[in-house]
């Protein structure tokens, strides 16, 4: 249960929970996140970040990747990404990969 109540930081390895599905809606031509009784329309940037949320990559790795791709300051990207992911987590649209016991 604790994995649901997450605080997003650089070391988090977030992923979409099983009940949340990210998909491109061909009819409306928008990306959507589907969850029980709920629908979200993430913007382009959120979609790009969400595609990186595989439960393996850390937030730090994502930010490195985005900073390189957009040749933008890492700190600014980190702030934006953490805020966006925390907002999704608070709404129940993001979880964290359970700690590996290996």
């Amino acid at each position, binding site marked *: *249960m604790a994995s649901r109540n997450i605080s997003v930081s650089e070391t988090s390895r977030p992923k979409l*929970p*099983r009940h949340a599905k990210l998909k491109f809606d061909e009819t409306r031509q928008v990306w959507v996140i589907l969850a029980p009784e709920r629908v979200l*329309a993430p913007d382009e940037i959120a979609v790009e970040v969400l595609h990186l949320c595989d439960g393996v990559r850390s937030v730090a790795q994502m930010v490195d990747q985005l900073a390189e791709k957009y040749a933008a300051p890492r700190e600014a990207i980190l702030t934006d990404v953490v805020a966006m992911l925390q907002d999704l987590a608070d709404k129940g649209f993001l979880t964290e990969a359970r700690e590996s016991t290996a």
Partner: protein
Amino acid sequence: MTDTLAGNKTTSQGPRDGLAVLEGARSAAETYGIPLAVLLEVTHRCPLQCPYCSNPVELDRGSTELTTEEWKKVLSELAELGVLQVHFSGGEPTARKDIVELVQHASDVGLYSNLITSAVLLTKDKLSALADAGLSHVQISFQGNEPNVADRVAGLKDAHKKKLEVAKWTRELDMPLTVNAVMHRQNLHQLPDIIQMAVDLDADRLEVANVQYYGWALKNRAALMPTIAQIEETSRIVEDAQVRLKGTLAIDYVVPDYYALRPKKCMGGWGRQFFNISPAGKVLPCHAAESITGLEFESVRSNHSIAWIWQNSEAFNRYRGTGWMPEPCKSCEFREVDYGGCRCQAFALTGDAGNTDPACALSPRHEEIFKQAEQESAGTQNRFLYRNFAGGTLETDEHQARRPDDANGA
């Protein structure tokens, strides 16, 4: 179930209008969009007999139900139409032998699927097969937090025990779980324990849904209507739990609209973003719509596509938007907030579906109906009329006598 569809509730968490989220740019003149979610009542058969069942009083017999192939065709058509989510509901959806096949087909055509179940017919193997078929989410109804109250309301012995077991399996299979608790005068005293039960079951969501009074529930109103004091206490408990359990358990709260000042935005607006398909294949603006006499509903067995029915059928167009509205709705600043409330409730309580929903404080009938409900809530009539295909069966004295003393919410 079905007091639970997103647009069919008055929630304390603010509006989540899917249509506005996805098609916000649409002209305000549009009275409907591409439908987002569809409630599939695949059967009306159910081992439970809850006195507030949201199914119509006239139930569809098993022999009239759509076949497997017909439901599959429906699912394919819905995906093509742009529907994103389907709720497999009933009756008890797992009473259909082909439920796994239907869920698999929903997955194959890209639909997000939700199972709204009483859980009592599920085995672990069946639940596992549903998970493998791509089921996205499980919602289990609970009638209380312990068997004395819960099994009495459900009208089925050992139902509660079985529900707890299936909820546990759901989480073992790593499927997300919503606990749906339908609340009324005779179980509201258990709410704190029900919230704790949802936490203990590791549910993701809890719906605290006060009974909505049409169909079976209207027949049982005197036995179910909560007192105002109960509702005030309930709101306090829910609001406290929402804060305390943030991030652990999401709680949606549906107030009984008799005690609200504004009516609920029923179905998110008639024929605006949701619809329902009955066991026999009728395409309905909501699950209770067949209670409105004088409206003709098209069937998926007709020559029309579901898309055509959504766009053109007389029943959908009749109460779309604001053009049909009488006063006080017509000039009301909230007319596009609540769309005049619930058409079925307006019909049941005033005899005309085209009237303002009496749940609204601005309705000329509000005072009278509210007073009646308040009187009923203070009454001692606790006997249920159980839901079944025979038009209902009154609870026996013997059953009543076995009730614990606090069953009336004291």
